């Protein structure tokens, strides 16, 4: 009977023909659902709210989405190797404070402040990576500890006060646009494109994915997985620093509270964007779509006059939904895979 069940479903497969299998292979992609959802949401908002399609609103949405892309990349680059970075927001905060301290307190030019801030974020990432590979502890516990270390530094240095005297030149990147498209958004798209290329065509990108897919097997296939883990945490620091600096550039001031909400945003965008939680999978398109989707939802909540204090609750629910949808998708595509091999 089992035999006949298999035969039956195989026959169904064949009857469905080319379109069916093409659809199935699209459906099996981890980023398809989020792209579709984002498009639907976009169309929905365009029709339901007249102020949505205004250049001003689109500018804002794309700029916020771009910032989320960098925040999400900071998380995705470690999730992809099978780890996580809980200290992401704190690194961002520390970057912001260092940038503020340089440009405001010390009065230095952005040409000094920005490299120093970037260096700070990078060193924080390297610190995480170094401790993880040397101590053999998992990234959860190490970055949980460094979250407190970095947060303490943020509060200690800034005493909680914002740095508002940021040179006007530095806000160009975060506030200006090219033909109505914010520079930040173009920057995000460029970085995503580069990453998509790296993960598909460069040896280092492939090695990062392999390490995330199965660290032991990757190491036993000649990949220096310690280096890969160190690299991914360093890049996580670089992305956090980038996001932090863009935040300063956009706000025109350096707020020590920057990054406190990044934990949920970074996981939400990365996971909804098709970054497999147990590593080994990355989608640039998915991250872009989910960053836009999340911004649209936040935007929509404001338009619906939802109390902003409940925002995090919504984000949490959305992450739960996304993860559930993901597990259903994986289960379904496993089932089709199974039927295929049985038949062969």
């Amino acid at each position, binding site marked *: *009977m*089992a035999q006949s069940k298999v035969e039956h479903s195989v026959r169904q497969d064949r009857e469905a023909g080319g379109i069916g299998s093409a659809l199935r292979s699209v459906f099996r992609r981890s980023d398809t659902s989020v792209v579709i959802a984002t498009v639907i949401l976009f169309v929905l908002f365009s029709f339901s709210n007249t102020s949505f399609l205004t250049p001003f609103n689109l500018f804002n949405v794309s700029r916020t989405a771009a910032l989320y892309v960098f925040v999400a990349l900071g998380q995705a680059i470690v999730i992809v190797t099978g780890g996580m970075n809980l200290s992401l927001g704190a690194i961002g905060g520390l970057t912001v404070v260092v940038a503020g301290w340089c440009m405001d307190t010390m009065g230095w030019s952005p040409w000094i402040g920005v490299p120093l801030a970037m260096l700070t974020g990078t060193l924080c990432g390297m610190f995480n990576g170094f401790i993880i590979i040397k101590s053999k502890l998992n990234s959860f516990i190490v970055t949980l500890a460094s979250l407190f270390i970095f947060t303490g530094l943020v509060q200690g240095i800034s005493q909680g006060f914002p740095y508002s005297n940021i040179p006007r030149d530095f806000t160009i990147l975060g506030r200006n646009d090219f033909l109505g498209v914010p520079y930040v958004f173009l920057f995000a798209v460029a970085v995503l494109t580069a990453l998509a290329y790296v993960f*598909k*065509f*460069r*040896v280092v990108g*492939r*090695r990062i*994915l*392999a390490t995330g*897919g*199965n660290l*032991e*097997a*990757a*190491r*036993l*296939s*000649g*990949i*220096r997985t310690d280096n890969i883990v160190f690299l991914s945490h360093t890049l996580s620091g670089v992305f956090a620093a980038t996001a932090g600096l863009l935040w300063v550039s956009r706000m025109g001031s350096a707020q020590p509270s920057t990054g406190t909400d990044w934990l949920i945003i970074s996981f939400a965008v990365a996971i909804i964007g098709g970054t*497999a939680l147990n590593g*080994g*999978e990355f989608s640039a398109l998915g991250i872009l779509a989910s960053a836009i989707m999340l911004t649209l939802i936040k935007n929509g909540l404001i338009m619906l006059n939802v109390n902003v204090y409940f925002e995090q609750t919504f984000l949490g629910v959305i992450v739960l939904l996304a993860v559930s949808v993901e597990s259903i998708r994986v289960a379904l595509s496993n089932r089709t*895979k*199974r039927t*295929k*091999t*049985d038949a*062969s």
Partner: protein
Amino acid sequence: MLQIRHVTKSFPGVRALDDVSVEFAPGEVHAIVGENGAGKSTLIKIICGVYTPDDGEVLLNGARITLHTYKDALDRKINLVSQEIQIIPKSTVAENIMLDKLDRYLTHGRIDWKRINQDAARYATMVDLAVPVRQIVATLSAAQKQLIMIARALSSDARILVMDEPTSALTRHETENLLALLRRLKAEGVTVLFVSHKLEEVLAVADKVSVLRDGCLIGTRPIAGLTKAQIVQMMIGRDARTLDLGRLKVDAGHVALEARSICQAGRFHDVSFVLQRGEILGFYGLVGSGRTELAQILIGEARKDSGEVLINDKPTHIHSMADSLFKYRMGYVSENRKEKGLILSASIKTNVAITIWNRLRDRLGSIQLAAETTAARKLMHALEIRATGPSQVVGSLSGGNQQKVSIAKWLAAQCDILIIDEPTIGVDIGAKEYIHQLIWNLASREGKSIILISSDMPEIINVARRILVFKDFKIVGEVRNNGEEGAPVRGYEEVSQEIGQYLA
């Protein structure tokens, strides 16, 4: 009476049980034997409710039963003593024995420890566990823990007791006690299902034996009048000695790899050996005898305290698999392909090309996708890997095909030296012979130097032409079975006896 009727169970890429029917009578010790991957565990798990069959039925005393969880089986007094020791280390012996029925010892909502300890002591005595029941389990030996698990099953008044390799951790004396206990249980009308690799025990205690091979029931026979050779014959379906690959021409003058006085604290002391070019050198011994551990040192996965490894007569510095592969072209096929050999969630392409991405780059440093696919295709063709294409996910392949992929990656890398660890675990017979032939061809036709690690005696004798016998982290013997120039290869019986002598 427990009856299994026409039970079939499939997993992705493999039919684990195929139309199996067998009966287990009360007061009978019924042995289930078969090679790795024959379907023994699947059968047991179906009887214990861990798996539900795809097709067929299970009858208990004539009534059809459907078990969804192990709890369902327990409710019907079917108990499992599994191969893995399942114990709570920080609890006492008594707690571990009575674990699943603490609720029967409640008086006024409190647990009556005195009664528990008394009852536990009784079951401990039954299995000859000479340890105070209040002792914490953590410090006990593996054998003692095994006995606790058996006592736990007994304390539930099991009517059907399923034992999966219960003697693997036991000493000879403990084993004899256990077998005596099984005979007592039998007299009380308990049905005992006894899964074991040790055919001597099967012959000593069982009334009947059922042999599984490749998911099929080969037959159920009364033990009386059956010999070990006959059971083996049923298990492997052919004479163990038939695969005759002949003599291997070894380039005797050239040494591919030489290990000199390898030492590792607490394990190896002054271990040396030589691997000739084009040779298949066998590492034979039990799991944990030092074979895999020595290989780990060779590939840089484990540190040695002193000694040196020479490749092509030059000293080496190997601190990782990356060094081993990229500096010395030495590959390692892991014994644990699912956890250490393959990225199951990735495609065949990725798993094969992972060692050669560097070589597939164009002038600008991008990996050429077409070249990657071609490389994978070629190896899939050469190794007869059955799949829908190079993009198929490796996790959905059968065991044999997965193993071929995990070997293919080292062929792609064009390694000169290959260490192949237990290549045929969980692989069906057809693929097994294919892999043996493949290893043979790599040495005989392509001149690769191969270390074959295996605990499968026929495998090591058929494929390797010089065998190092490992015991307690020492090389206790060297067996040459290539024969003299012009003379035939030495016979299986003769070689296996010589290996046996070294192990004794």
